[in-house]
């Protein structure tokens, strides 16, 4: 794992988050949520810092991070793309959409494009079954996506028509 050095600002951010939950070990998941929200992902160094602040073993923090699929240890693309793999989406062709995304972006699930723009993931049901199949880019939901539309969605982001959310790291 490549080591990264946290900036003083990031260290402060993480410390403040922990403090806002009274440095309680039981608030670990809330702390991780907040940290990922602010930082974009949870590298080892952030987990070590959280462990220290909450006075708990870092192995336990890592155990929690790897248990929940919501937490990422690698930086996501500027535009994280998630394909809903709920049943409704599945029977309405989510697999083809995923296939098309992989083809267009030339990456596999869990990877990020070399330019750092897009990452591709599968998602559990987001409960928008009425719109199946569903693709999410960041927090934006695209419903009734056809393989033909995939190119257009990617192009919108590639051409900078839609801006990304900025993270601290």
């Amino acid at each position, binding site marked *: 794992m490549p080591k990264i050095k946290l900036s003083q600002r990031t260290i402060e951010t993480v410390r403040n988050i922990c403090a806002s939950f009274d440095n309680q070990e039981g608030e670990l998941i809330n702390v991780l949520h907040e940290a990922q929200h602010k930082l974009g992902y949870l590298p080892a160094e952030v987990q070590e810092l959280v462990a220290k602040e909450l006075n708990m073993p870092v192995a336990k923090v890592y155990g929690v991070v790897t248990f929940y699929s919501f937490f990422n240890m690698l930086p996501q693309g500027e535009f994280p793309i998630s394909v809903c793999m709920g049943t409704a989406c599945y029977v309405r062709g989510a697999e083809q959409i995923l296939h098309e995304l992989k083809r267009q972006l030339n990456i596999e699930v869990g990877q990020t494009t070399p330019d750092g723009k897009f990452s591709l993931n599968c998602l559990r049901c*987001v409960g*928008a079954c*009425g*719109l199946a199949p569903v693709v999410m880019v960041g927090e934006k*939901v695209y*419903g009734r996506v056809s393989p033909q539309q995939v190119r257009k969605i990617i192009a919108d982001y590639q051409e900078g028509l839609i801006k990304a959310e900025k993270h601290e790291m």
Partner: protein
Amino acid sequence: MEKIKSLDDLKKLREGMQAKIKLRESGNNAENIVRVKVSMSTCGIASGAKEIMNFMMDEMERQAIEAVVTQTGCMGYCYAEPTIEVTVPGHDPIVFGDVDKVRASEIIEKYIIHNELVEGILPVNYRSIDI
């Protein structure tokens, strides 16, 4: 906001609210206001309900139609999002589905102004318990 400290407080508040709503809904003699409810659930928003809500507001304001546009939760017609419910004074509410800007303008031009129905009506097919 005042705290509700007793059952009576609650009743008073409720009656006040109900009277207000009744006034709105009984249409013929009181507030002559068009009411539009936009289903703003995840599915609705993902299908563009927010844009439609803004569009309806702007458009009716531009045309000086007295209207209240509010958001509401999922109406259950996920297959036809965005959906809106329009209540013209003196008429039963009507739900329209698959509302895009074109249909929204139609709804204003034809239904709200001229009581002419337009495509996209979703007949209500359930009974909600009476309150």
